[in-house]
């Protein structure tokens, strides 16, 4: 009953509000009727018309007041006041439109940057992973957080553990383009990930159409999976979202396969587990098949049972790991290392995102300081209006509120612009597919980001509006404005506040500049790193034959023919084949020299590369000692190996590595030593490397033809394709991947950070210089007469300029001192992101300081120059 009444009242209120103009008119008519009736009655009593009217009005009271009071029963008073303030605000904005547009642009850029960074942080850190109950998913590394696990260990752990409801895994041993799909138009190279049968069930991802793998399908043969699932992106690209593809029989690596389903769009395997690549299909990984790849090939995750925590699971797994290692000394080492899946996915980028978030926060502070300053100047010019409103009875709180409403309205307009910018920016960011960053594709402005933008707008409006509003309303009410209209002392206290704001802006800009400077220098250092190969003019192309190679002589012939054809293409200076590309693919074995015995867990691990003759030359890897592989290192000849310098040093310290034997892979003699190559990242040294001649082994998963060209690689692709068709007419070849692409991808995360932070620093510098320009010009405009008098008394234009530039530099030096100190204190937070420079790198500090001073001096020089042009006579007469 009660609730129904208040609901009806609310609806009535809404209706009244909707037609409040009409209601107001009618109310007025009703009151006029009342007065007319009173007049009629009084006239009937014998009063004169005029007297009667006056008496009626007296009896009635103030009509406007009553009308207003009536209106407040329809609309709450604060809404009414707010609307009024808003109307005032927009009127004020229209009045100085140029100023307003400028302020909205500054606010828009600041809020746009904040919303963009928030969207990135939201996608990578805040938003839960697109799986069922992602909080209970746990990643299991082995020894460290990224090394894979042996499948046999996985099977035992899955059976023995009590912490997880289930565990799943996928093969770390897949490579981009190592599957060939035929039977649906042109043959095509695909990237397929072998996964355990329960993989999607454990993640809680159901196929969009079709079904998951059955028990039978996931216990087949590794080399010939009978079923495959498609990623949504591949389904769209290749089959145009045709649902009838489910159930079709295709040919995968020359074996029949049935398409059993399509995964939902929200499941983007690559963006979560293998950034910067794309994954097209998923095939079952039969753990029971003895012919699957051996060794640490499995990436493992599990879902915690209710009540279990990562810590309790870790304790159990440590114990299980020891138990299994004792029971199976023949297997690889096992030291389970658990961490929440979300941490594994984006933990790597968290520090960088933290820096970005701080940077954008500082940018927002500069924006607020700048807007504060501009608003102060604007309201000082409107102090007369404020004084008038105060005289008419507006309280300080009411004035404050009006000014704050105006600031918030301004920043909300800015937020609209910012939102447009953020949407554009996030679209761009989401398309940086090649970037080695997790969940990048899911970056977008969503509801949370909208809410954030709204809060940022209101917050910024209040923050930048509060100080000037406080100052102005205080001055207005204390009556200081009477003498504030002229003279040089007009806004002493104003000036103090303004200078403070500019110093703060400069200090913040300085912090950002130093941070960006340090990262840029690190970036340059990273690019200067010698990766051990020459990325310029080197490119790779998948060339695995479409037929199955059954024996070693056949493979030798294929390689001979392929290399010979490739080398005969004009423009190709060198060609060789490798199974792994630097900075992209990895696999490692334990290695030892002949006769060397290592304790368990202390055996050196070396990266294994299977390469043909010509590879070192094509990739630009320097030969240090001995010889490279030749065509004569064949199946039937002596088994040889080439090692890198680090491996030579590690296995045979102080000895000549040439002629030594490694015990690995059945024993091989070292014939050459090559330079170290950086594989995992440009920032990290590569470690041990061992190169096996391709003609002497079948243990490789891919054939990448690497060429060194004298012409741009793209122009050679077509010619090369034609040449290779002669070797294998069905050879499915994709475009070249240049080595430069590999390097670019390796530095992409760093480049992303540097680009954003550099952009913020430039923006901050521009804002700070605008701030200093505004303050100096304002102080010049306030002192036109003083300057006029000085010049009339003989001061030269140079004197005037010097005084003003000195004042500017005074502000700049103060800001710089605070900023450099702040930067030094905060720069340690960059820690892990720096490379080749220390956080106290003097060159950066001096350089950025000089840059800031130069910009500040330039910003101050313009008003100084203008001041020196003041005509003393005109200046004195103008008042």
């Amino acid at each position: 009953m009660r609730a129904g009444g208040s609901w009806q009242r609310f609806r009535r209120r809404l209706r009244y509000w909707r037609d409040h103009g009409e209601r107001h008119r009618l109310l007025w008519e009703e009151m006029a009727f009342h007065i007319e009736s009173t007049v009629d009655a009084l006239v009937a009593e014998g009063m004169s018309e005029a007297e009667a009217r006056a008496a009626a009005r007296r009896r009635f009271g103030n009509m406007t007041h009553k009308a207003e009071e009536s209106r407040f029963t329809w609309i709450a008073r604060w809404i009414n006041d707010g609307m009024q303030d808003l109307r005032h605000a927009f009127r004020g904005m229209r009045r100085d439109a140029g100023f307003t547009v400028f302020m909205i642009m500054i606010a828009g850029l600041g809020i746009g940057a904040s919303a963009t960074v928030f969207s990135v942080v939201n996608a990578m850190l805040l938003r839960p992973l697109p799986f069922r109950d992602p909080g209970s998913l746990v990643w299991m590394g082995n020894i460290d957080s990224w090394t894979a696990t042996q499948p046999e260990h996985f099977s035992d752990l899955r059976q023995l553990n009590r912490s997880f409801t289930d565990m799943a895994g996928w093969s770390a041993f897949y490579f981009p383009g190592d599957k060939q799909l035929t039977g649906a138009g042109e043959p095509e190279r695909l990237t397929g990930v072998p996964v355990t049968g329960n993989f999607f069930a454990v993640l809680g991802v159901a196929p969009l159409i079709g079904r998951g793998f059955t028990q039978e399908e996931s216990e087949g043969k590794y080399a010939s999976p009978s079923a495959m699932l498609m990623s949504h992106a591949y389904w769209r690209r290749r089959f145009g979202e045709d649902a009838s593809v489910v159930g079709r029989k295709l040919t995968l690596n020359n074996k029949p396969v049935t398409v059993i389903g399509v995964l939902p769009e929200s499941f983007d395997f690559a963006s979560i587990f293998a950034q910067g690549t794309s994954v097209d299909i998923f095939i079952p990984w039969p753990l029971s098949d003895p012919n699957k790849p051996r060794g640490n090939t499995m990436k493992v995750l599990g879902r915690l049972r209710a009540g279990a925590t990562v810590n309790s699971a870790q304790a159990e797994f440590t114990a299980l790991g020891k138990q299994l290692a004792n029971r199976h000394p023949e297997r690889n080492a096992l030291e389970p290392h658990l961490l929440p899946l979300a941490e594994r996915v984006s933990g790597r980028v968290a520090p960088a995102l933290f820096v970005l978030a701080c940077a954008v926060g500082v940018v927002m502070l500069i924006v607020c300081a700048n807007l504060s300053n501009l608003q102060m100047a604007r309201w000082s010019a409107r102090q007369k209006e404020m004084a008038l409103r105060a005289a008419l009875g507006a309280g300080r709180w009411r004035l404050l509120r009006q000014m704050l409403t105006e600031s918030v309205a301004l920043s909300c307009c800015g937020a609209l612009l910012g939102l447009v910018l953020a949407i554009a920016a996030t679209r761009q960011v989401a398309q940086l597919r090649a970037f080695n960053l997790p969940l990048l594709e899911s970056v977008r402005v969503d509801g949370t980001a909208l809410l954030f933008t709204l809060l940022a707008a209101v917050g910024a409006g209040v923050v930048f509006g509060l100080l000037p509003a406080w100052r102005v309303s205080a001055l207005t009410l204390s009556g200081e404005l009477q003498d504030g209209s002229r003279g040089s002392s007009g806004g002493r206290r104003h000036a103090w506040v303004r200078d403070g704001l500019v110093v703060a802006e400069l200090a913040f800009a300085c912090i950002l500049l130093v941070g960006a400077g340090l990262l840029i220098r690190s970036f340059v250092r990273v690019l200067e790193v010698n990766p051990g190969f020459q990325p310029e003019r080197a490119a790779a192309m998948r060339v695995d034959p479409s037929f199955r190679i059954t024996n070693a002589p056949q493979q030798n012939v294929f390689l001979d023919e392929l290399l010979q054809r490739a080398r005969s293409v004009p423009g190709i200076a060198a060609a060789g084949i490798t199974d792994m590309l630097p900075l992209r693919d990895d696999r490692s074995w334990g290695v030892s020299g002949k006769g060397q015995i290592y304790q368990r867990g202390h055996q050196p691990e070396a990266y294994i590369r299977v390469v043909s003759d010509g590879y070192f030359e094509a990739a630009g890897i320097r030969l240090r000692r001995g010889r490279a592989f030749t065509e004569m290192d064949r199946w039937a000849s002596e088994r040889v190996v080439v090692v890198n310098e680090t491996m030579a040093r590690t296995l045979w310290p102080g000895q000549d590595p040439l002629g030594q034997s490694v015990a690995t892979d059945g024993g091989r003699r070292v014939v050459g030593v090559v330079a170290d190559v950086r594989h995992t990242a440009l920032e990290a040294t590569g470690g041990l490397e061992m190169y096996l001649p391709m003609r002497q082994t079948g243990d490789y998963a891919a054939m990448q033809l690497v060429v060194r060209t004298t012409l741009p690689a793209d122009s050679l692709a077509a010619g090369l394709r034609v040449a290779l068709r002669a070797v294998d007419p069905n050879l499915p070849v994709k475009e070249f991947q240049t080595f430069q692409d590999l390097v670019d991808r390796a530095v992409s995360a760093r480049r992303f950070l540097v680009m954003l932070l550099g952009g913020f620093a430039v923006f901050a510098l521009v804002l700070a210089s605008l701030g200093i320009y505004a303050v100096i010009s304002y102080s010049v405009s306030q002192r036109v007469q003083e300057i006029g008098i000085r010049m009339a008394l003989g001061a030269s234009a140079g004197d005037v300029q010097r005084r003003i530039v000195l004042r500017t530099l005074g502000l700049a030096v103060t800001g710089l001192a605070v900023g450099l100190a702040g930067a030094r204190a905060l720069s340690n937070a960059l820690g892990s992101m720096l490379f080749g420079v220390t956080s106290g790198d003097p060159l950066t500090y001096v350089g950025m300081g000089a840059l800031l001073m130069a910009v500040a001096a330039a910003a101050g020089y313009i008003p100084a120059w203008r001041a020196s042009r003041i005509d003393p006579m005109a200046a004195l007469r103008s008042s």
Partner: protein
Amino acid sequence: MGTEKSKADLLPGTLDMLVLKTLTRGHLHGYAIAQLIQQLSDDVLRVEEGSLYPALQRLELNGLIEGTWGLSANNRRARFYQLTAEGRKHLSQESARYRQVTGAVARIMGFA
């Protein structure tokens, strides 16, 4: 302006009650309500006439009365108010409470 005592002479909420009571006599416009209150109180209660209108708006918003436009005795457009069912209920509650309060006051003052 606004210094007439009449408004302060009424207990808070009393004006609403008086208006509701007056309207038990049928459809009335604002002027008639003011006149009736004055007459029935033998000119003791002089409402500042303008104050009637915010009160009417409030009562209407709360659904206690309902206004419709019609023609007055001398053929002018005027707004006539009438009690709603809810208004009647509200009036009986209010008058009961008022009786209690004034009775208590009277007892204290020794009038009763």
